[in-house]
């Protein structure tokens, strides 16, 4: 095996010695001997306990959400002038600070604004001017605007450089059928569509356990290198989940998740956080934001999507209760939408948008970031909300102040991160 290969194995071999994590489940560190060989000298194993592990939940609004409807600048007359049919009437908005208001269907988030665990960053986005969804999403997820061939996602790089924490199989999980670009890369990450169905499928629990055992034996006996270590991670994850017993999960504090993908995904995130299996990065997705036609105002197409978003986030925060102290939810979208409504009562691809930051440690109750205004002279290309906060400064602040990442350089290659540009939503 080449030198590179060795390094990959050592980087990816799952460390089973997570004492607190494992003790909770009575797992024996069966493979400690084999895993330990790959542990590079001088690398700390893990912190003493898993309790208090910080969690970042990234919620990607794919399709470019209209930030001007999500958090509407009702104090700006141009907003109403440019959007005769789709502006949210002032009296319907949940006023935040006399200038901005939450969309009425996000009303479920109002309590978090009041208790200062919800902040908004407005006029945020990517400095790259592309109006292609997929390019802009790739740029945001690799955190390298303008560079098309960055091989890995920013959250994967975060895992690659996080030597503080034990790499449990659930450290970074995407809740969906496929791994998003943000999590793709050499650090082990998981895509889980359904916690209950994760692992091997069989008609009964007994046959499933049997199948799991025999495949575990096969891979233990006959696989080598990366395949062996990855399979081992997988079986360990299956075993941990079996003990967590996802079928039995009951949300607490009367939390009611909305039906649909997003509610289900956030419910599973809450479940894994509460199960204390070492989750530190979760990715969830919500689609349906590409509202070119009939986007609606206080009610309608976009309102329905925002309603699902607000209700799902509120249920998630209620479910976790005090646990939100260690959690930050960050919403993001590849770009925003045109200031002016188009000919079909919708909006087209724009530039700046709004992102929400929700969590116990958040400096909430503020709309952060400099507001550039909607005056045509202040707009991007004369038509779109300009960007005053580079998304990397927001991501960087969350990575540093919430997750404790000291060195942001590997996360944002080619970009000099500086705390002076952080929007100031944490710490």
């Amino acid at each position, binding site marked *: 095996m*080449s030198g*590179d290969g060795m390094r*990959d194995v050592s980087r*990816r071999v799952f460390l089973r010695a997570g004492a607190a994590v494992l003790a909770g489940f009575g797992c024996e560190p069966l493979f400690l001997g084999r895993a330990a060989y790959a542990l590079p000298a001088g690398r700390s194993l893990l912190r003493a306990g898993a309790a208090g592990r910080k969690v970042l939940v990234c919620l990607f609004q794919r399709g470019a959400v209209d930030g001007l409807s999500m958090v509407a600048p009702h104090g700006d007359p141009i907003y109403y002038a440019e959007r005769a049919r789709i502006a949210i009437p002032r009296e319907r908005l949940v006023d935040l600070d006399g200038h901005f208001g939450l969309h009425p269907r996000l009303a479920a988030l109002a309590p978090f604004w009041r208790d200062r665990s919800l902040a908004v960053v407005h006029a945020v986005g990517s400095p790259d001017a592309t*109006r*292609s*969804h*997929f*390019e802009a*999403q*790739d740029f945001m997820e690799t955190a390298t605007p303008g560079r*098309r*061939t960055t*091989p890995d996602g920013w959250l994967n790089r975060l895992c690659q450089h996080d030597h503080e924490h034990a790499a449990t*199989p659930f450290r970074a999980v995407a809740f969906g*059928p*496929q*791994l998003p*670009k943000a999590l793709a890369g*050499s650090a*082990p*990450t*998981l*895509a*889980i569509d359904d916690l209950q169905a*994760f*692992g*091997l*499928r*069989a008609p009964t629990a007994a046959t499933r356990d049997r*199948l799991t055992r*025999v*495949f575990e*034996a*096969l*891979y233990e*006996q*006959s*696989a080598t290198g*990366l*395949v*062996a270590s*990855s*399979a*081992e*991670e*997988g079986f360990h*994850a*299956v075993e941990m989940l079996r003990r967590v017993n996802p079928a039995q999960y009951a949300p607490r504090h009367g939390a009611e998740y909305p039906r649909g993908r997003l509610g289900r995904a956030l419910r599973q995130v809450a479940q894994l956080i509460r199960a204390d299996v070492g989750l530190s990065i979760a990715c969830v997705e919500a*689609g*349906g934001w590409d509202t070119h*036609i*009939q986007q*609606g105002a206080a009610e*309608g*197409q976009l309102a*329905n999507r925002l309603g699902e978003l607000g209700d799902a986030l509120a249920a998630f925060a209620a479910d976790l209760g005090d646990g939100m102290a260690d959690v930050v939810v960050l919403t993001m979208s590849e770009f925003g939408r045109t200031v002016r409504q188009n000919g*079909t009562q919708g909006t*087209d*691809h724009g530039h700046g948008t709004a992102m929400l930051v929700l969590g116990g440690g958040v400096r909430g109750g503020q709309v952060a970031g400099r507001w550039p205004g909607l005056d045509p002279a202040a707009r991007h290309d004369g038509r779109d909300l300009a960007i005053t906060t580079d998304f990397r400064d927001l991501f960087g602040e969350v990575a540093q102040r919430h997750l404790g990442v000291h060195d942001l350089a590997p996360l944002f290659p080619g970009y000099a991160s500086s705390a002076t540009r952080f929007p100031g939503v944490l710490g």
Partner: protein
Amino acid sequence: MHRFLACLLLPGALHAQAPAARDSAWHALNRLAFGPTPGLVDSVARTGVRRWVEQQLAERADDRMLRDRERGIEVLRRSPESMARLFVEARREVQAMRRERGDTAAAALEDPVARRDMLRDLPEEARELRERIVETQRLAILRPRYAGNQLREVLADFWLNHFNVFAGKGPVRALIPAYTERTIRPHVLGRFRDLLLATARAPAMLVYLDNAQSIAPGSEPGGLIARRVWRSERMAERRSSGINENYARELLELHTLGVDGGYTQADVQAVARILTGWSIEPPQRGGQFVYRDWAHDRGEKVVLGERFPAGRGEDEGERLLDLLAMHPATMKHVGAKLCARLVADDPPDGCIDDAVAAWRRTNGDLRAVVTAIVLGDDFWAPQHRGAKFKSPLEYTVSALRAVGAEPDTSARLALVVARLGQPLYQHTAPDGYPERSDDWVNSGMLLQRMNVGVGLAAGKLPGATFALPATLPPAGDLRALVAQVDTLVLGGRMTARTRDVILQEIATLPAGAPIASYALGLAIGGPEFQRQ
């Protein structure tokens, strides 16, 4: 080079090097094909591995099985123009429907494998487009599953990925059939220069990397009406006006020279200027390649030190592509990529040197380049056998082939491949899917592969029909059963440890359990079948 010649000149040299004909047949069928079908290892070993490889290189294998399957595929009979128009009509209908109902039904167009019930509500053109896209996905499985000329399918997969386009960008999804059938497949064993030129003129590529919109600053079509039409189209589609460097950059970085190929940003800009005017007709008018002289930058350019004098038109683009196709950096970059696909993730220098030498000697004849690689020592070296990890497509198709399972008429097998991490035609970035093992191995996907193996063997894999082969002995003689499974799935190379685990497991199954399919599923989902 001399090793390559030795192979060609001395019949039997290959056999003298190979440890055993069956081992070599197994290796060849795993790398130059999507795995063996039942009995194929033996028949290739019998008639001679060398002869089989030569037959594959000459594309002389029997393809009747595939032809039969292709007969019912409508998209192969559609003209590229009609597909482009179908896209426009479908989009118009879906937008009208969305305006009426205001929401989600249109999402079915976005997702080529969306749910069926949604389809019933779709307007006719949208449904038709979707059916054609489903066929495109089905073809991507049918071809490697049934083709006799397997090497051609391996290379088609390689080149489609090398010149990747993304189905989700605008009309690209409707342009992909023409892209695979007319742009890529005719050239996979032809000249690299022709392949490069075909991709440069392919509507799918021109749209995907925006060259269709790249025009010399300040230029507009001549003629009053043409100008007015062009301006209104530009406003409607909010196209920017000016040079777009996207294609030029990827052409140099990915398609030809490679990121370390010694070019500069000034070269990228000059290449973009040379290719201004290489565009397409609007999709409603067929969406075919067109060179627009009025959009062309007629100034002087310099690329890689070569001067392109002022005043030239489309011909300077062809000259540029000729230059790139025979540039030493291109030979090295693309040759090394071919070696990584066919030989090893980190191919030895000697193998790359052979490929480059053949490229230079034949002016980029890809048949000669591939011949040099697969008849070279490195291809057959023991350390490279079974040393690569199968991609999701390779894994799925090789599993189907191993047991003789048949794809049904849905696109659900393409969905299986997608769930394993390789949604076909949906890699967004121009670099294509990765080739290295590390990029495909992860715990969630390994578990999924085990499920695929078990599901297939049980006859329950969505999209595949499969019944246990009659050759499997009935329950009773467990050793004979596992030996049969070994022959079928692993070419008789199952390790003793794997055999012991499977034997022990099936020996303790309760009476009446489907022992044979269980054993088969374990072998397909097990670690050895993940390698090639």
